[in-house]
């Protein structure tokens, strides 16, 4: 919202001048003249030079000179009101300009104009965002405004770097056998994320998994308070890593069922896992799908135990560190491919 408001304010000024200039060239010229004068005065003040009468004074005097002749006593209080309003306008204008710049920079560097809540930016890529805490008061909001600048500037060099997949020690699930003649891609996704599901379907339809060495990195998005964005993603991810220890096909079968499968009432399993199933229901379905994929009862028991293990916990913590801090990913799906980092919905070219 904030970034849109800032864009609107700046755009309105520009549109206002442009429209006036088209229909009323004289008024438009006068407006531009006033703008030039205002800028001239501002530029003088920026350089600590004196400006005897500025745009603000011209406007103020035009308004108050009428009052002065009829109600001289009102001049002083009205003058104070105009001064206050002019300060507010300047503060809002400066804020709007800086926020617009910040949003544009964030959109370019991070893929979203909203640094704290990336999915709230309608101009950014479609994604499931890794959100930060909402500020609780004006002081926190002010502090956040400044720290966001830091995040943006930190992310700028990333735009110019080449990502080498092997520099990151991801735990991953390999789709098929590795072929040295194919390019390698890392695909970070959350089982509960709708955009990830769409991406997966697009990739599958385009033969992306057959044409590339794809390393799947299941990732359960967590907020600043460590709670999970999608309630059952954690257990799904745990089962996928545990299953991968026995056979990668078991893990792939789980995600394939979640992203493409439907129950007898034609509801998508992703929706059911996100909204309807309890953790126990989810586990029950995961184990059924493993069984259907050919896993024996012994293997399922092993997977069940391994899913709770410290080893899987460590894998998930390590992946989170890489995703959030080393790659500074603001939303998923995110892919590392061709030396670049791509965040958002994957579309077949």
């Amino acid at each position, binding site marked *: 919202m904030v970034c849109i408001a800032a864009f609107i304010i700046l755009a309105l000024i520009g549109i206002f001048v442009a429209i006036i200039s088209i229909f009323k060239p004289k008024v438009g010229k006068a407006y531009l003249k006033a703008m030039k004068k205002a800028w001239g005065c501002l530029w003088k003040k920026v350089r600590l030079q004196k400006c*005897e*009468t500025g745009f603000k*004074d011209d406007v*103020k*005097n*035009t308004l*108050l*000179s*009428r009052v*002065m*002749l009829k109600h*001289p006593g009102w*001049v*002083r209080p009205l*003058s104070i009101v105009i001064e206050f309003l002019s300060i507010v306008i300047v503060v809002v204008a400066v804020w709007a300009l800086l926020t617009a710049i910040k949003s544009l920079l964030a959109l370019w560097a991070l893929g979203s104009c909203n640094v704290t809540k990336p999915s709230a930016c309608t101009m950014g890529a479609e994604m499931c965002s890794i959100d930060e805490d909402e500020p609780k008061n004006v002081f926190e909001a002010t502090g956040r405004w400044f720290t966001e600048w830091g995040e943006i500037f930190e992310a700028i060099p990333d735009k110019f770097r080449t990502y080498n997949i092997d520099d990151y020690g991801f735990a991953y699930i390999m789709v098929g056998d590795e072929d040295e003649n194919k390019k390698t891609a890392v695909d970070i996704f959350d089982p509960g994320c709708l955009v990830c599901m769409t991406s997966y379907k697009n990739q599958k339809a385009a033969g992306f998994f057959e044409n590339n060495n794809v390393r799947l990195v299941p990732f359960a998005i967590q907020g600043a308070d460590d709670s999970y964005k999608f309630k059952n993603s954690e257990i799904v991810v745990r089962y996928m890593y545990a299953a991968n220890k026995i056979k990668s096909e078991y893990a792939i079968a789980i995600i394939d069922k979640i992203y493409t499968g439907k129950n007898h009432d034609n509801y998508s399993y992703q929706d059911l896992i996100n909204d309807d199933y309890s953790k126990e229901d989810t586990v029950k379905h995961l184990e059924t799908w493993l069984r259907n994929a050919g896993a024996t009862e012994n293997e399922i028991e092993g997977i069940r135990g391994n899913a709770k293990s410290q080893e899987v916990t460590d894998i998930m913590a390590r992946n989170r560190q890489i995703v959030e801090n080393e790659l500074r990913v603001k939303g998923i799906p995110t892919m590392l491919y061709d030396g670049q980092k791509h965040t958002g919905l994957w579309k077949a070219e």
Partner: protein
Amino acid sequence: MEDFDYLGDGEVYLDGACQSLRPRPVIDAINNYYSEHNSCGERVKYKWGRVTDEKVEATREKVLKFLKLKSKKYTVSFTLNTTYGINLILNQIKADKFNKIMTSDIEHNSPFLASLAFSERTGLPREVMVRNDDGSIDLKKYDFKKAIVVVNCASNFDGRKLLNINELEKAVHKAGGILIIDAAQAMAHSADIVRGVEVDAICFSAHKLYAPSLGVIVWKDELDDVLDVRFIGGGMVDDVDKEKYVLSANNKEHRYTRFESGLQAWGEIVGLGAALDWLEKLPKKDWQNLEKNTKELFDFLNSSKKVHLINKEPNPTMSFYIEGLDSHLVGEALSRENIMARTGYFCVHYYLDHVKGFPPLIRFSLGLHNRPEDIEKIKKVLGKVIN
């Protein structure tokens, strides 16, 4: 006054210190030049040119007569304005013949900045003298040895005069210096202060003297001895060879060309002649009217506790500010009532802003065109604003 018959009812013009209104005879003289003898002056043989030459020559004589100076000693040259005149002189002065340049604190930027630029360019030290409240200079406080002194003889914000101009002239000349007077504000209503005083140069603007826009330099012929040639071109030479030239100014008859490079504003010069004629013939009652208006307005402003009047005594030029009110705002309000007055620092930033710390001021500069009803209107409108 019928010579300002173009002034509408209720229109009160109070900015004569910048641009005086032109009386009908002056406007007629300019129109006459354009419609009856438009020509290139001082270089042609045809009829219209001769008419122009006669009028221009007559104007030079009228200026000297107005200032009570003799043509044997002085020459009148025309230029753009006072600032241009002062710069023309200072830019050509041989700095090695002098020890320093001096000006005063109440100067218009015209001499103030020109002297500053001169000092920066030549390396000669610059001294800013402090003028007394009455406008005089304490001569004992300053050493004028080989000094270039550039000062006004009437200020442009309160009209205070250089009361001891005669003593200053003697002191400067005795010490081997030269005295250049900015008479821009004196010429219209206080010319007596400079009349007959044998300074080295007087610079003034005809447009503050009920004449068209024009600058005038009245200069002592001896000044030429301390001038280099730095500004030269058309209309200034008798002969030109590949590598040398002969200045027309070497002959007394054409000495004025020393500061007149290129073609001049002949129509405006003719207009100045008409303005001087008009002033000479002006009935005494018109001067008495100006004096009365000045006194009445001064008393009115001086009587209000909220008005901070800069003037110590009545003068057609008076500046003030009203406690708690922005002068630009007051100026705008007055303008809504057709009262036209200047606001700001009137190019006297150093003294008014930096020395005195005044806020921007309002300046009323009365002229011979102002009617008693103008003063009544000012009192009525301003009275409402003040109270």
